């Protein structure tokens, strides 16, 4: 009996001793941005990747999670994909070797690589591409709705010979290649049996349930799938492109980053695809770990309810007021305190990653004295307690005199310390004589429900009431089309989180979508970015850096290629 008690006590002692003895750290071995090439490349090895995102499906017609999209890139052929060359993203061929377009921009002809095969040895031809496109278009409002946006305006496709496919568009499309980069080709000989009747089979087919019969055509095949565990990919010997250096990639899902970082430090993970800000400095001190940091695509913003039909606190519809309050927020402090220095300031909605970023916007100065002068000049005088008052107004949207006191909604699902970020905003707003309180909006779903409001309906202009200010984020993309769409009326009650309604902007959005000339499209896009900026729909606060880390026994990792290219997993290799 005493011995067993002693064991229990020994465990307690071991815990305490372990906690006392593991706080040490070693010297810094961090690299700058971009992949570094050190040592000789060695073929083989299992690359163990840690991620806080999981794969929910291997069916490109039915998936939700972003990690599934990354898996599709590795498993399925695309006509084109992005590469990162000389500091910029460029479209390069994947299954397509080259392409050309008709003068009116409505017909795109893709010349495919010859001799390509699926993982089961069947030939991969233009017929597979045409069939996947036509099937996606056919069921676009139902089972294939997830992949259909990549084929916006496509009428049909035809295979004119085994290596040539022509895609016919109903209208010229400005970003046809960028859209097709998000389109995956599936083998007709396996999938056509699901494209019958109402096509539901296309959505319900789950290749991961019978991995042995799964047919892929990318750089890798699937060996093992555990949704909340490890998924294993093996290089496909039939792949036509640059072969992977590794023998396998084992992608392990972690629900929390702390465990992942602990496993990396103890040598159980080779590569972490997204390092949390509070762990970067710790990893940088470890000589066996290489940290890479690049400008990221995720921007954090103050979201202003810009619904022109809202009935309360309408003073916040005035861009001058929103700008003045934004000028009181110390973005540098936010970067240092909340993001440990691993973020940069940003001005435009699509962010730095966008091909057409309008670099003439801003910068937003931290100048609260000027902001106070603006608010004074607008007639918002400070009351005895230092809080500014809004005078009563008349007319359709009349509101009584009221103090400038607001709630700022922060979702609980932010990937940074939202509470601390709110405190910094609160300090700034207080300097301007505006009182704010934090309104924790729950997870993403709950917070978005608050933003759009129950019974949201664009036809009756209902929704987007009951809140004024939120703090949230967006993840941009190389082509700005999606980010530009989120403030259109067409996205009311869907992606719109501002409730803005501006027909002129919507017209420009349609126009950029059908402008094939790149320079002309860039000009329209930048004009739209300026409209968003001038109306202060968002106050762009910071752009988070994208940080990955790998052990020094590996090299060839390029974080720029994450979610864009097969090279992301084919180029990593061991170093000898």
């Amino acid at each position, binding site marked *: 009996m005493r011995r067993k008690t002693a064991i229990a006590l020994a465990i307690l002692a071991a815990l305490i001793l372990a906690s006392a003895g593991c706080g040490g750290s070693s010297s810094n071995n961090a690299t700058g941005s971009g992949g570094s090439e050190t040592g000789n490349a060695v073929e083989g090895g299992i690359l163990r990747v840690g991620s806080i995102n999981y794969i929910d*499906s291997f069916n490109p017609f039915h*998936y939700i999670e972003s990690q599934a999209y990354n898996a599709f890139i590795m498993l399925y052929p695309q006509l084109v994909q992005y590469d990162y060359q000389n500091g910029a993203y460029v479209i390069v061929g994947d299954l397509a070797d080259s392409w050309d377009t008709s003068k009116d921009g409505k017909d795109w002809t893709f010349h495919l690589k010859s001799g390509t095969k699926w993982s089961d040895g069947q030939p991969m031809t233009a017929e597979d591409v045409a069939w996947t496109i036509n099937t996606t278009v056919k069921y676009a409002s139902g089972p294939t709705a997830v992949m259909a946006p990549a084929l916006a305006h496509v009428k049909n496709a035809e295979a004119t010979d085994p290596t040539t496919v022509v895609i016919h568009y109903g209208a010229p499309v400005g970003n046809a290649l960028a859209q097709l980069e998000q389109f995956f080709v599936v083998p007709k000989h396996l999938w056509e049996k699901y494209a019958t009747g109402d096509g539901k089979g296309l959505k319900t087919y789950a290749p991961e349930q019978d991995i042995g019969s799964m047919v892929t055509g990318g750089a890798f095949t699937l060996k*093992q799938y555990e949704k909340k565990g490890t998924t294993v990919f093996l290089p496909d010997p039939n792949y036509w492109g640059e072969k992977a250096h590794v023998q396998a990639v084992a992608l392990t899902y972690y629900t929390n980053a702390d465990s992942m970082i*602990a496993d990396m430090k103890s040598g159980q993970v080779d590569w972490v695809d997204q390092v949390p800000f509070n762990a970067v400095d710790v990893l940088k001190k470890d000589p066996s770990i290489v940290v890479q940091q690049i400008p990221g695509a995720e921007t954090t913003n103050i979201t202003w309810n810009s619904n022109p039909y809202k009935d309360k606190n309408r003073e916040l519809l005035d861009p001058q007021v929103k700008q003045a309050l934004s000028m009181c927020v110390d973005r540098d402090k936010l970067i240092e305190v909340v993001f440990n220095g691993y973020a940069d300031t940003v001005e435009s909605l699509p962010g730095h990653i966008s091909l057409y970023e309008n670099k003439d916007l801003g910068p937003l100065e931290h100048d609260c004295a000027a902001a106070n002068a603006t608010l004074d000049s607008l007639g918002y005088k400070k009351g005895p307690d230092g809080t500014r008052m809004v005078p009563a107004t008349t007319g359709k949207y009349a509101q009584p005199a009221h103090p400038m006191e607001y709630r700022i909604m922060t979702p609980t699902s932010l990937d940074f310390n939202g509470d601390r970020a709110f405190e910094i905003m609160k300090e700034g707003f207080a300097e301007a004589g505006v009182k704010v309180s934090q309104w924790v909006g729950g997870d993403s779903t709950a917070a978005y429900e608050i933003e759009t409001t129950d019974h949201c309906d664009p036809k009756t202009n209902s929704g987007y009431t009951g809140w004024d200010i939120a703090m949230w984020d967006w993840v941009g993309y190389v082509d700005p089309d999606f980010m530009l769409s989120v403030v259109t009326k067409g996205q009311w009650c869907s992606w719109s989180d501002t409730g803005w309604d501006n027909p002129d902007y919507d017209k420009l959005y349609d126009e950029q979508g059908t402008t094939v000339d790149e320079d002309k499209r860039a000009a329209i896009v930048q004009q739209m970015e300026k409209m968003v900026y001038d109306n202060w729909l968002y106050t762009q606060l910071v752009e988070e850096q994208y940080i990955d880390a790998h052990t020094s026994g590996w090299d060839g990792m390029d974080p720029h290629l994450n979610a864009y290219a097969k090279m992301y997993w084919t180029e990593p290799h061991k170093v000898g």
Partner: protein
Amino acid sequence: MRSFDFVAKRVMFAVVTVFVAITLNFVLFRTLSGDAVSALRCRQCTKEFKEYQRQELGLDKSKLEQYKVYLEDLAHGDMGKSLRSERPVTEELWAPLKNTIPMVALGTLFSIVFGILVGVVCAWRRATWADKTGLWSALGFYSMPPQWLGLLIVLFVAGAVGLPTAGIKDPTLGILGDASTWDVLVDRLRHMILPALTLGLVLYGEYALVVRSAMLETLGEDYVLTARAKGLSNWRTVRTHGFRNALLPIVTLVALSLGFIIGGSITIEYVFSYPGIGLQVVEAIDQRDYPILQGAFLLLTLSVILANLVADLLYFKLDPRVST
């Protein structure tokens, strides 16, 4: 006859509780903002896709209609389909449940064994260093939130002892060759140790405290004094007269804490990325996957009710006063 009444009443009570729980499971989750479709936060989730999904999943029907369908399906033993994966709930729950049960069993076994041992020793050696050490360690672990203790173990213990902190399987096991059953078994056990230890340590504290208290009460009874006066050995007095009579509150506690064990395993599984029922529940809440939540909580309810029923019946056996 009285015995039959006792058992019948308990069983009836359990059945009514299950029905109430089924209804509450349906209502409570639907008070959350949004649904499984509005929870879709992906770039490719267009308006068209969401409308199609809402129809397909029956979310366009009224809540009352959904409730009727739910009850009808349940009466046929069908817990419905996951709104996210669109696979049967039973399949979606069975796989994680298979992972949770051995981990929880290991943790509970650890806690019962050590909790009882430490509790008995503390009471037996009251006011000695052994009692103080056991008492303080039990209080310490009992007061720790499971997820916090789990994080401490991840950060400070896992690396030192070389045990994995995530998942149930080594990422490289069986990739380039077949793994033997023994290898798989050892690997599973290695992945189970830290989450089970976390759960076990938290429960250990509670069990040790209750056992100590129950033992102290029993050891102060006159019949224990009589036993000692008769010349029985110290050990025999504690074992046959003290411990046996202190068993009643322990049985109740183990049964009552089953709900906590599963509840506690939710946060522990999250910390250790352990793909069990707890992780499944967290994900289902985030995704507003009602059928999964209903199924998981129905299982939880059933297991707690069953455990309490078993405890009641054990009482019937252990305590003659119940049946007389």
